[in-house]
């Protein structure tokens, strides 16, 4: 009964590890907007448990995506919706001043950094997309320790290793929406091939120049498994020489 006595060590209050996790989220600015991509899988360790989750979400005119612990992302969504409600109540009967994406990004920075300092991080990497206070396209990144930056292309998780080099290679400031989408789909396909915790069922979301947000329904990417190296894996050996 040690935990009941006054001399017991205090109950552990720091986050240890994530349990239900989402993998990469990709973000890309194009000519006249911002686009995000993420798959709909949440893994339970090595198990692909929840295959139809929503890792892209729009709250109060701001689009965001999250990798990492899914329950923490849900908590962040609740927090932002409560903030949006408070903002609506306090901004008078006529002008409802929506937060712009930059404000939300900053608010999340404060939240994430604060939690990190208490050793209770919200275990997420967040991508925030929308318009800033000047109505320009905005793309920002906040991670579980409160690091933030703004960029033309961002990725979380495995995406930062596999997708960023591809995005950097193909990125142009005057990319059209169709090109951006094709590029993101290509990266998501490669992530599915190479990231063990990824799936090919993805969603694409965009914010256009007017600030309107559209999140697509999930759809499956076509994949090819007939590459030569896959069918005849090892040179000069019968069979795959594997163990």
């Amino acid at each position, binding site marked *: 009964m040690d935990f009941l006595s006054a001399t017991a060590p205090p109950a552990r209050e720091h986050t240890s590890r994530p349990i239900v996790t989402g993998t990469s989220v990709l973000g890309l600015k194009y000519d006249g907007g911002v686009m995000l991509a993420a798959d709909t899988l949440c893994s339970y360790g090595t198990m692909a448990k929840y295959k139809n989750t929503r890792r892209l979400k729009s709250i109060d005119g701001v689009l965001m995506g999250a990798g990492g612990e899914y329950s923490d992302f849900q908590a962040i969504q*609740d927090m932002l919706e*409560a903030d949006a*409600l*408070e903002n*609506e*109540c306090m901004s*008078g*009967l*006529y002008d409802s001043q929506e937060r712009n994406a930059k404000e939300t990004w900053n608010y999340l920075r404060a939240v994430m950094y604060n939690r990190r300092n208490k050793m209770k991080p919200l275990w997420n990497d967040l991508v925030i997309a929308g318009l800033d206070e000047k109505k320009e396209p905005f793309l920002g990144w906040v991670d579980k320790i409160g690091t933030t930056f703004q960029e033309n292309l961002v990725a979380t998780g495995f995406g930062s290793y596999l997708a960023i080099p591809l995005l950097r290679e193909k990125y142009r400031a005057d990319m059209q929406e169709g090109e951006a989408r094709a590029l993101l789909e290509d990266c998501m396909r490669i992530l599915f091939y190479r990231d063990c915790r990824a799936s090919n069922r993805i969603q694409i979301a965009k914010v256009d120049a007017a600030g309107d947000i559209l999140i697509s329904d999930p759809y499956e990417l076509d994949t090819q498994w007939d590459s030569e190296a896959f069918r005849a894996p090892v040179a000069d050996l019968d069979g795959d020489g594997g163990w």
Partner: protein
Amino acid sequence: MASSGSGYDLSSSTFSPDGRIFQVEYATKAVEHAGTAIGILCSDGVVLGVQKPLLHKLLVSSFSQRIYTVASNCGVAMTGFVPDGRQVVTRGMEEAATFVENYGSSIPPSILADRIATYVHYFTLHGALRPFGASVMIAGYDEETKKPSLSMVDPNGVAYSYYGCAAGKGRQPAKTELEKLELHKTPITCDEAVKQICRIIHVLWDESKDKPFELEVSWLSEKTGWKHKGVPKEVLAQATAWAKEQLEEEDDDEEEGEEGMEE
């Protein structure tokens, strides 16, 4: 009705020998000195209106808000001692936010009214606290029953549901006017209610005696997506113009009517 409390009116936690709590009655009197507030439950929603007397010529009129959105589906209007009213409204916002946090859906207006009433009542039974000198009207849309509703909470902490209600300085004549509309038998539309509220407020206003005022009117209806919003300024301007026309016609009728008495 100035009955002296004579010793039983010093604290909310004291009853008088004839069973009254004077502090609560005095709080109600505070409401009776303030601008008139009117609420009307309509066939297609709810409309709230509060008259804000402009105390000084130099006052920027639209600053002192009396009607607030407390939840996506509820609005609250208050009259009486304004800071007290603000406190009650803020509590309403907290109740609504906590309800969403706990249950995931918007607070039904009947529950909100109940929570606000409980809060207001709490201040009527503590010796260390004074009652709120404000009445609040709660307009809301219940997403389950799909019905709009209107309630009013008085300083004594009781909440009633109304077809039409009034509080503040002109509440007696306002109630008479509302009864003439027979809202319990044939409800009117929100558009009509905005006009009627403007008319009633202008009927009560005496140019020679009362200060100029600003009228704050809000509604929630199917057209607003059941969200509580301020009535658009143009609609309000039209309603006010209509109200003033009606008043002039009534004045003309009064002059003519003196000659031939009707049934």
